[in-house]
């Protein structure tokens, strides 16, 4: 694995490398070089299995982090390729020519995050939502509770309890507070 990383460093600008476990490594590359490095990993280094492609909303930085999780059958190693893209102008190159199921993830990201993949087949089609009019729901600034309260009729009677308070009140009411009970590990 070290050799591969060294080789990749020679090829592209590797922004970050992190070894999570023996069989799981993460690298971060620049957006323009991504397609090239994925093709290289697939065709020459044996990372032929694309486990998934997903996005993380880094709203504080105004970025989306995409993760392409690859797998090498012969060495049994997972390699996650991260890339940061702009959140406001979210657009990414399509990988549907590298993997035939790539378009599925891209369609999902287009719907749930609003990331555009020009040229990807069926990317405009709806995936899980039907007639959705709000902003892409998986973005961090979409408040699902507020939407649910607004749209669906709540049945009165639902309440939220803090577990510590609730237990003290209901279960240990008749007992003196025990000094041994561990509360917060803050």
């Amino acid at each position: 694995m070290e050799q591969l990383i060294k080789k990749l460093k020679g090829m592209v600008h590797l922004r970050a490398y992190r070894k999570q476990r023996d069989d799981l490594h993460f690298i971060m590359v620049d957006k323009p070089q991504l397609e090239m490095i994925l093709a290289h990993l697939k065709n020459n280094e044996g990372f032929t299995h694309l486990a998934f492609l997903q996005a993380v909303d880094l709203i504080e930085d105004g970025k989306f982090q995409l993760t392409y999780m690859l797998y090498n059958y012969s060495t049994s190693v997972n390699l996650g390729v991260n890339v940061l893209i702009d959140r406001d102008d979210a657009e990414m190159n399509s990988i549907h020519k590298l993997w035939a199921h790539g378009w599925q993830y891209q369609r999902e990201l287009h719907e749930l995050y609003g990331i555009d993949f020009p040229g990807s087949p069926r990317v405009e089609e709806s995936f899980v939502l039907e007639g959705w009019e709000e902003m892409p729901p998986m973005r961090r600034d979409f408040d699902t509770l507020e939407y649910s309260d607004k749209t669906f009729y709540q049945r009165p009677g639902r309440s939220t309890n803090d577990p510590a308070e609730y237990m003290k009140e209901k279960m240990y009411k008749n007992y003196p507070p025990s000094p041994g009970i561990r509360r917060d590990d803050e």
Partner: protein
Amino acid sequence: MSNLSKNKYSGYDADRSKYPEMENGKAVIDLDSHKFTKIWQGPQHPGVTGNMSVELIINGDEIVWAKTHVGYLHRAFEKLMERRKYIQCFPLVCRICVPEPDTNEYCVSAAMEDLAGITVPEKAQWLRTLNLEMSRIASYLMWIGGQAGSLGMGAIGQWTVGMRDFWLDLFEEMTGGRVYHMYMIPGGVRKDLPDGFKDQARDLIVRTRKLLGDVENTFLSNAIVKSRLQGLGIITPEMVDEYGIVGPNARATGREYDIRINNPYVKYSELDVKMITSSVGDAYARAELRYKDMHQSLDLVSAILDRIPEEGALQAKMPNLVNWKIPPGQTYVKAESTRGEHGFYMVSDGTGKPRRVFARGASYTHAISVLEELAVNISLSDLAALMVSLHTCPPEIER
């Protein structure tokens, strides 16, 4: 770039040579010509696996075009988990795949442990392995009933789903839950095995083996079953990489990919797990492979029962889970479910709630790209059998 020519959207496509209207290598399907009928198979359809639907264009009894629609079960788990504390995620994740919830629980707790750097004690690892293998058997029992039912053989489904219920009873003894267990928590498991559990389990293994013998005699050796399943939905070895096919579907083509062996988790490295493969790649090969895998799971369960240590901690020393904060990082944890690679990608940002959790269900590609390819050119009567044979599980597609 040798694989480009075999790609779905650049030339490689299902064999449509049977259809008369071909233009530039594409079948022309004109619905107004009255040669084709458009039907929606599902979601209200007994032959569809779960709540999903397939949009079909048929010519006579033959499917010429298929498109999968999912989203009927979308509950936005990933969004909900971003709003919940780590420990509150557990009631949610087991509902991602209903027939086999334990893989989800394992993956989520293992991902949290990986990010927080917690080592699980020995005994808890064994109990987790036991739980995972038992859920594999329960899921397979349901599957084989579905496969027989899709061919109109109700008896097998009645027997095996009835037997699955006894396994669920065992789960109830072990975890307190019948379908959803929430047994694995970060750092270990919730409780020890009850008294007499091992004898019950061994007894049930014998009964299940007897049932599997009956199933083999009436189902797998049946001439009509063979004539219908053999040659149906052939997955070629080249398709495995292209479509990200995993699990028994990939092993039936000869691909040696079983996470229990390739990337051993919990205690699988100490157990004798055999790689079961086949080279045919059709629905019958998959059925046979899963049948052998069921026997292997039964073997594993009895081996695990012998090796579970009597003494030992059930949970690592943990901070207060209510206010547990995990340091920033990202990880991907996977496990072998009955359908293949089931993984969780988790990103933490240092707060008490996960930044992002993604569940990689094995059916994700099986039910969409692969099914859309394989459904073309088969008879409408085989579609249910094909869907069950790919072992699609809609809730893990749309989460």
